[in-house]
């Protein structure tokens, strides 16, 4: 009996240990690529490029799509921020996805809107559109009211109505820096259309003052839960996406702020209206389309342009968000599972997919197993102490060291939080991550995994959700 237990402990210990090593090596490589890229761009005077592209002659017009479902609280600030963008030619389409609150009335009243006609090319199937309004103050601002069909459906309506060849998606509660759109469009404009989708950096707005759509005085929130999410976003965006982008292996760009070529988005079938993580799903579909058509177009992540979004402040909302993100992740991976280890899909199939399956999707199971293993090993004592200590050290390396490293990398290259106290607070909280925040998110992600697994057999009966922004994948 003891012998069997020892073998089981050894087996799982070895498995967890091997997994941690793989992840640490992968993260170290991604960290290195991010460092090299940011080092290259760190001292660049971006105003020069901004000033060049702010001229309508050289830029490409963009339709900005803002899906809104019960966004009464944030939609006006968001529209103000979008109207203030330094971009020469845009149209702004707010798509009210059958909100039950006063979102539409608020937008109509605040921006003096009247019923209007807008040409639309019905290239994607959507729920019926009820009314179209146009602002008398800002003629490029439109409100499209439609039956509730989910965020993906709202975006598809936006694509049908979009007048320009590129569209930008922004969550209804997000705020863009004035030059963000210029900067996210730069790779598209300078690549002769080779870049067909680009996503920007998403940061957390909690604790900041927003005045007429502009973020004033960047400071860190007072809540530990929010600060932990700030660190998590820094790590995910700076470390993961920069490296994946360098090799055209991006599978996620945030739905909160991304730009797509309309032609490619439509060719890939538009947004999926039944999946939870429609933003990831869209990127995966585009990558799949590109590889199947043998096209050398790219999807890019651009670290500099910033979109500010609200993060959950309570554990219960954060739990729901993480559960949904994980469900979305698994659904997309499952829907396109044949890309995994399929050489036809190049590095996306051979590296991105296996990485997302192993680290992002099933990683939480192994990591939580690691936590349980550590506890068991301590109870069992004796020789298992060594394993427990070793695993704890790896957790610290994996969690704390990379988090602190990301905070420092961000601070050194982009300096979003100029106050030293804020940087120190983020670093201090990173030390505590492994003992509370990490285990909590692991449990929630596993919950999402379980929920998804039970629903995979009933793919077509996915519960419809409104175009909420709080729970969408970032």
């Amino acid at each position, binding site marked *: 009996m003891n012998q069997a237990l020892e073998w089981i402990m*050894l087996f799982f210990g070895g498995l967890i240990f091997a997994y941690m090593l793989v992840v640490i090596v992968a993260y170290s490589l991604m960290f290195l690529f991010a460092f090299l890229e940011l*080092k*290259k*761009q*760190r*001292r*660049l*005077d971006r105003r*020069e490029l901004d*000033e*060049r*592209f702010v001229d309508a*002659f*050289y*830029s490409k017009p963009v339709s900005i799509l803002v899906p809104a479902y019960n966004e009464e609280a944030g939609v006006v600030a968001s529209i103000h921020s979008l109207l203030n963008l330094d971009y020469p030619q845009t149209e702004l389409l707010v798509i009210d996805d059958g909100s039950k609150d006063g979102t539409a009335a608020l937008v109509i009243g605040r921006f003096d809107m009247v019923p209007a006609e807008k*040409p639309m*090319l019905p290239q994607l199937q959507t729920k019926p559109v009820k009314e179209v309004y146009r602002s008398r103050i800002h003629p490029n601002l439109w409100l499209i009211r439609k039956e509730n069909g989910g965020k993906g459906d709202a975006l598809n309506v936006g694509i049908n109505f979009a007048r320009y060849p590129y569209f930008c998606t922004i969550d209804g509660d997000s705020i863009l820096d004035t030059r963000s759109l210029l900067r996210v469009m730069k790779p598209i*404009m*300078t*690549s*002769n259309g080779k870049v067909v989708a680009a996503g920007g950096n998403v940061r957390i707005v909690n604790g900041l003052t927003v005045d007429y759509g502009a973020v004033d005085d960047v400071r860190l929130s007072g809540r530990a839960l929010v600060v932990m999410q700030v660190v998590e976003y820094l790590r995910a965006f700076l470390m993961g996406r920069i490296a994946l982008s360098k090799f055209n292996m991006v599978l996620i760009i945030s739905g909160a702020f991304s730009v797509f070529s309309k032609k490619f988005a439509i060719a890939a079938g538009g947004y999926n209206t039944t999946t939870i993580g429609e933003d990831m799903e869209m990127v995966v579909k585009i990558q799949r389309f590109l590889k199947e058509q043998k096209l050398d177009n790219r999807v890019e992540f651009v670290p500099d342009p910033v979109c500010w979004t609200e993060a959950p402040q309570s554990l219960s909302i954060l739990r729901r968000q993480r559960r949904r993100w994980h469900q979305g992740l698994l659904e997309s991976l499952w829907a396109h599972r044949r890309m995994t280890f399929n050489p036809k899909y190049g590095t996306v199939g051979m590296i991105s997919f296996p990485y997302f399956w192993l680290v992002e999707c099933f990683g939480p199971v192994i990591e939580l197993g690691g936590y349980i293993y550590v506890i068991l090993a301590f109870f069992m004592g004796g*020789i298992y102490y*060594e*394993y427990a*200590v*070793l695993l704890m*050290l*790896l957790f*610290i*390396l994996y969690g*704390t*060291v990379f988090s*602190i*490293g990301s905070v*420092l990398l961000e*601070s*050194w290259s982009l300096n979003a939080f100029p106050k*030293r106290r804020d*940087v120190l607070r983020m*670093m201090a909280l990173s030390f505590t991550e492994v003992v509370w925040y990490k285990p909590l998110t692991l449990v929630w992600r596993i919950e999402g995994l379980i929920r998804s697994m039970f629903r995979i057999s009933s793919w077509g009966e996915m519960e419809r959700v409104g175009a909420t922004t709080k729970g969408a994948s970032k």
Partner: protein
Amino acid sequence: MIGLPVGWVLGGVAFLLGLLLLLTVYLFIARAAEEKRARRASAYLERHAAAWFRHLRGFEPAGNELAPQDRAEVSAVEEVFRSYLNNLAGEGMQNRIREFSNRHLAGFYRKKLKSRNWSDRLNALYRIHDFGIDALAEDCRALARREVSQEERFQLLLIDLAFRPDGFVDRNIRLNGNISEVENKELLFRMPEAVFDEAASRLDELEKDTQYALVDVLGMKQDLARLPFLEKLLGSTDQELRIRALRAVDALGIRTPDGILRRAVDSPVWQERFIAARMIRRLPESEALRYAEKLAGDESWLVREELRGLGPALERRQLEKEAALG
């Protein structure tokens, strides 16, 4: 139980945490130095803002006290120049900026051009172009002979155009797709008239992308004297060139000559009919309707949609016709 490398891992983690601590200290020291530089730059601006105003407006020559002494003061001078160039630039002011930069900033940027850091090199190229530092023209040519990024390549072309417009087309007639369409347009748009004329006259020798960009720029410039040139391009066998030429004619904002419009309305290419639909809005209603009738049942949704504005008038004319027949 196998021996586990706990000691090694512990050592590794401790080493990394120690390293991060050192990096934190470095970061804070670097930030303090940056803040100090920013304070020095503001102090310089405060001290010399009035003197700069007097000099750049041509009231007095630049005194030696304006010459920047270190990096912080160079960045302050850069801000002064950028601000004046963006808001008040005139030929005299540009000459004074060029003269001062050639004398006091060229050495600084020469070093930056040799930097291994891409951002430093590119920033230097931006400044050399913006401030017209022709003393560095040769250094830029030397850089152009090396392998450089797409951004540097483009900036070097702008500098070459600004400092040596004569023979620019000859030197760069074949860019081999090294620059994007947007960059092509910018380069063409910034060309002095004589250089642009030369490029236009040698259209056939240009790369396809440059040809298209040139035709787009002709539209942007809205120069009516170019209409005959564009008309000639409408007979091209290259469909893309034809579409762009038609779009450029439309961008001129004039009443389109009948011959051009007739051909566009009857074109088998929907893009040309689409532009024609846009053009006919500038015609008197009776003439517009004559063309619109032809396009009203067009197979392309976009063409039909473009005619929507004329919808009520089109219906009215149809009713009038029916009444006349009846």
